[in-house]
């Protein structure tokens, strides 16, 4: 294959197409920074998709459960040994993703005789202030997208993950318009549920680029909430506690949703 670069490019393209098709049905995950922390949210009851990684880091993932599990374990191992040998303050999401996960995922993806990771992940690290929150999305090919400000875009205090690019982009533009970074928990919860609905609607209607109207989103959200469980977790900003992650129960969230 080395002598035949065209075939390598073709193999990579095929592989990309295959993985995208595998991931396309993945239910969206929204992560939003709010005044007192970061909220991760998705709907669905089949298997857990939101996980605690370390004191200030959480992860949401879609993809093959076996691959998610391997990556999740690897991330926890790295963070835990780093936190043990140095200190919890030395465990950083930026290093974890940029220096450890991304290179491994990239080389697994490009070595066409081996199996790639069928997974797409969204990480968040809670900061002392909302401006210090960090969101990183890692793709199956090791590509990293960050919430941080770049020359072309302002900093976002949210991130989205979904089965298709269209779905994710619609969620992002929805959150861009609706989500204020310094909001309270209830407002963040509502934005997260709506963003999830926008993403899920886009998955079901195929490759639409149109933002659904507000009433349609609200109707869809109510319908989905009626027969699907909420999975959510928060990273609390409270600096008096070392461990910031807490899984939220469906029941305690229902009490805060006024439909």
């Amino acid at each position, binding site marked *: 294959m080395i002598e035949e670069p065209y075939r390598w490019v073709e193999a990579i393209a095929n592989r990309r197409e295959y993985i995208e098709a595998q991931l396309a049905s993945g239910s969206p995950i929204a992560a939003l920074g709010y005044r007192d922390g970061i909220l991760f949210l998705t709907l669905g009851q089949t298997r857990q998709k939101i996980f605690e990684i370390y004191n200030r880091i959480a992860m949401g993932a879609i993809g093959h459960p076996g691959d998610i599990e391997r990556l999740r374990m690897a991330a926890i191992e*790295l963070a835990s040994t780093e936190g043990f040998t140095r200190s919890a303050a030395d465990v950083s999401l930026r290093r974890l993703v940029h220096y450890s996960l991304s290179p491994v995922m990239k080389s697994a993806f490009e070595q066409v005789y081996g199996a790639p990771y069928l997974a797409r992940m969204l990480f968040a690290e809670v900061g002392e202030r909302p401006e210090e929150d960090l969101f990183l999305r890692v793709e199956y090919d090791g590509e990293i997208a960050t919430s941080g400000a770049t020359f072309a875009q302002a900093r976002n205090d949210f991130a989205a993950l979904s089965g298709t690019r269209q779905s994710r982009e619609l969620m992002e533009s929805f959150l861009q318009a609706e989500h204020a970074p310094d909001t309270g928990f209830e407002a963040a919860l509502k934005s997260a549920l709506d963003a999830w609905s926008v993403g899920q609607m886009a998955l079901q209607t195929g490759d639409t680029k149109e933002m659904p109207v507000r009433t349609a989103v609200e109707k869809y959200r109510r319908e989905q909430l009626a027969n699907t469980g909420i999975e959510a977790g928060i990273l609390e900003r409270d600096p008096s506690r070392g*461990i910031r992650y807490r899984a939220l129960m469906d029941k305690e969230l229902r009490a805060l949703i006024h439909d």
Partner: protein
Amino acid sequence: MRLDQNFAGTADDFPTLLRRKGLLGPAAIVDPISPVGGLHQRNWEPTEATTILAFKFSGGVLVAGDRRATSGNTVVYDRADKVLEIDRHSIMAIAGVPATAWEMARVLEHSFQYFRRTQLQEMSVDGKVRALSKLLRDNFGFVMQGVGMVVPIFATYDSHPKPEARLYFYDAMGAQFEVTDYAATGSGSPAVRGILYYENNWGAKPLQKLNEDEAVSIALRALDTAAESDTSTGGVDRSGKIYPLIKIVSQDGITTLAETKIAAVFKQTVA
């Protein structure tokens, strides 16, 4: 931070993971062939120069420790923390060699978190108690060589099957003993055990019925008594205003008592 590409997805327990990565020394082997009193054992003597105590009272478990760290006859530090929080509901109090004890506490703390994060469930109280026991057992070879003896107390709050405070003490080999009322270890512990036994049986009321102020008062009196005869126990430093460290485990988690509060109880009922 390097990632193992061939990672198979199985989760070791945390000490095993650390050893696999070369971050924790191997378990010391107890050499049964060396004659008793041989080279390795010549220097062996129980060095657990400190006093820690714990007892159940109406508000949960109170765990207290003096602040003195010694090396032979020398006081090396007078603000040592020997009562360590392991997780939201567990405390390990240590008597023994600080270097080993603090590392054990660190391993233990990370073990519980690691288990919860990888297995997606909280480790049971029995599992936690065993984890500490295993660390002590792994360390016993060093104890026999005269270095690194640790004799801890472990206090926690169990929510299954029924909510209750649980209290354990260990020996240096890792045997665990669950106690119903109180535990004390360290060089000053004989005096403390005497006091707690007396209070529990013939005091104004049994230890389990005490309110928080009464419990703090008894803990301070007990540590001060231990310090009276044991040079390795700091007790209450009246001139330096250094008070023992006192933490309480209850259903709601761990509370560290403020020094001002301890000072107030001390002034009223002990001094």
